[in-house]
């Protein structure tokens, strides 16, 4: 044994390869547990709570600089914005009136048909504080978590359409998997004819796809896709995507359709979290 600093006089520990093998085994065990059974949420949550304050402190100077930069806006810009917003508010109000009458009409019709009432979703505005630095997934971190009553499975939307879903809820933050993640899918309906489909992410920010499409399915370029609400996660009627291209079956028996997400999946800073749609139990006869 050479004289290295802090070297014990007598070696009474496992050799390096043995220790490495043990760590390797433990890592593989963790990987398998996390990948197959997702039972490590507590460990992840705990470590995340440990790191969260550090991340907040590190991000603070950046946020301040943004605030300071935002302070120096010209008067003209503010006025222009104000005018535009006022105009938009008036338009929204008119649309809102329309919505109220439609909602009450819809409720009446639902009562007439003896259908269960639509779940009421109160949105909660949250801020995206961080994107997840991983080469694999399309995920972001938002600034609300379990402490604010957020749970995994809540849909996330922006002003225009669906953005994704809360997949992990930590004590103070939560992780949102974007619609464009390869593992995400959303059940949708075509607005034109009510055809039910499943749209999935491709890993690209601007493209979604419908993978296993019937050869004769009635789907055309320009069709709008809305959530169908039959999965118990997304409430019905949220705009999701617009079909850009359909592809006839080539080597497989299935056709494919490519769509463009409507919501700003990779763009905005603020998004809204909705209550997860409740699974509507089948009516008793």
């Amino acid at each position, binding site marked *: 044994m050479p004289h*290295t*600093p802090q*070297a014990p*006089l007598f070696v009474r520990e496992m050799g390096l390869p043995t220790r490495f093998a043990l*760590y390797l085994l433990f890592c593989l065990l*963790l990987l398998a547990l996390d990948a197959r059974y997702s039972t490590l949420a507590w460990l992840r949550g705990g470590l995340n709570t440990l790191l969260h304050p550090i991340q907040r402190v590190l991000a603070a100077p950046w946020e301040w600089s943004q605030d300071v930069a935002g302070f120096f806006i010209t008067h003209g810009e503010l006025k222009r914005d104000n005018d535009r917003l006022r105009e938009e508010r008036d338009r929204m109000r008119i649309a809102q009136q329309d919505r109220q009458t439609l909602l009450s009409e819809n409720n009446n019709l639902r009562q007439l048909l003896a259908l269960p009432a639509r779940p009421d979703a109160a949105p909660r505005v949250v801020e995206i504080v961080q994107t997840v*630095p*991983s080469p694999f997934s399309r995920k972001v971190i938002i600034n609300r978590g379990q402490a604010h009553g957020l749970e995994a499975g809540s849909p996330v939307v922006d002003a225009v359409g669906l953005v994704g879903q809360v997949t992990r809820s930590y004590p103070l933050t939560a992780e949102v998997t974007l619609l464009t993640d*390869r593992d995400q899918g959303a059940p949708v309906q075509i607005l034109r004819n009510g055809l039910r489909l499943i749209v999935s992410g491709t890993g690209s920010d601007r493209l979604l796809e419908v993978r296993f499409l019937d050869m004769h399915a009635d789907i055309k370029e320009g069709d709008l896709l809305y959530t169908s609400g039959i999965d118990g996660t997304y409430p019905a009627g949220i705009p999701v995507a617009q079909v850009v291209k359909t592809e006839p079956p080539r080597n497989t028996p299935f056709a494919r359709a490519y769509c463009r997400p409507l919501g700003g999946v990779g763009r905005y800073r603020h998004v809204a979290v909705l209550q997860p749609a409740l699974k509507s139990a089948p009516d008793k006869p």
Partner: protein
Amino acid sequence: MSLAKPLLPQGAALAAPATRAKVMSTLFAALCLTLLPWADGLRWLLPDLTLMVLLYWCIHAPRLAGLGIAFALGLLTDVTHGLLLGLDALAYCGAAFVALMVQKRLEGFDVPRQTLQLAPLLLGKEALVLTLGLAFGRGEADWRYLAAGLLAALLWLPLAMLLDRVAGRPVPESEHS
């Protein structure tokens, strides 16, 4: 691992022995640097500073930075990445193991030669993370992340010199000539 008094420190270790405080503080600083809110477009180019500092200490103070610290750092990195728990821990342990295996040789080389020896290690770590992610079915890997490994190899020279200053290690004779 016991922390008995140094038996017979020599050379650099005698002039400025690496202490646990130095190792921990530099590792913590490196971890903080990677936790900074980097721009999204540059993520794939961001070298793994934590691993580089870890390797530096594996080479210069193998009694203080070993597999255990590599594992703990890997777990913390995993949580920030939100991917699979144990993925980066495995990669860090592997890199630390290889570095500790050839520690004597690496310690003897000057920094530019160390770069050549460590480049495959730094690049291999990125490749291992990408490959394992693929193997565990996390969708498509973004292979641009390999560039981070190359950049890490390029940054080894300035980083090692900076850490030499921080640790107060005397500049080896060979660098004067």
